[in-house]
């Protein structure tokens, strides 16, 4: 299983979303969320959302290993 962290304001869209899934890439996690959690999936599709696997920033097609933690982080651009 893959554990998922929705960081920051993404957590507000993920109140009823699963925190563990079976998936082979972060992109597949987003795809799995599309039907039951469309608002969350839409947020994950915004530009500049970062993805990390075990605290390493990766691309959406990064292969996942069982037991990995995937974090999704929304863009933060203000100053």
């Amino acid at each position: 299983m893959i554990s998922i962290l929705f960081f920051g304001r993404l957590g507000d869209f993920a109140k009823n979303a699963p925190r563990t899934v079976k998936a082979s890439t972060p992109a597949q996690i987003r795809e799995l969320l599309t039907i039951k959690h469309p608002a969350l999936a839409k947020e994950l599709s915004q530009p500049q959302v970062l993805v990390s696997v075990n605290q390493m920033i990766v691309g959406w097609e990064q292969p996942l290993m069982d037991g990995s933690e995937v974090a999704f982080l929304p863009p933060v651009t203000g100053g």
Partner: protein
Amino acid sequence: MRYSRHLLMDDIGEAGQQKLFNARVLIVGLGGLGCPVALYLAAAGIGQLSLCDPDHVELSNLQRQILYKESNCGELKVNCAKRELLALNPHLQISSYAVEASAELLNNNFDIVVDCTDNLAARQLINRHCYNQKKAFVSASALGWEGQLVGFDFGHNPSLCLNCIIDENSPEPSLNCGNSGVVGPVLGAMGSLQATSVIRLLLGFFQQHGEMQRYDGKSGRWLCLQASAKTDCAVCGVIN
């Protein structure tokens, strides 16, 4: 004595304080991040500070931009900031530029550029320039309850830059502080960490090239993320 709390520390001392005094630091953006950065660096005795921001002080700035007072509304931020910083520490050389960040400005002689801007285009301009000039670059941003910090010491690390993490061709996100808000102390926290990173760079303690810190003030959580260089990066990629 002004710097006695630095001089008491074995890893700063007189030699470290002299390094801070000899430093030339450019702060781009004098908003919620730039205000605490400028205040802490001026107080710390950074000898040459340059301030860049084209904007005037507005009432809606005062919730978070701690250099300014209500009576400053309508004044150029760089003029107000320069006056306040010199009142804090009159021994510094402070230059002000009431312009947007540009290659022409960045070509001046700075040791470190502190990115306190509010848009990706300015960040990428600074990133590319600092990479090409092998200068250090400390970037932060904030939105809502969240903050982000990342620094690059290009003088010692020839690969991995901001463009490896956030592609310069990405569209600007729709949310910004102007349309969705920001918590003032989150900006203060991130700006304080930027100032700490600048001091760490100047004293030779910086080991976090490309490491990203994320803070969520609503939950009180931090994340520390590593990044890797992209071989096809348009700025630092080896196959570019």
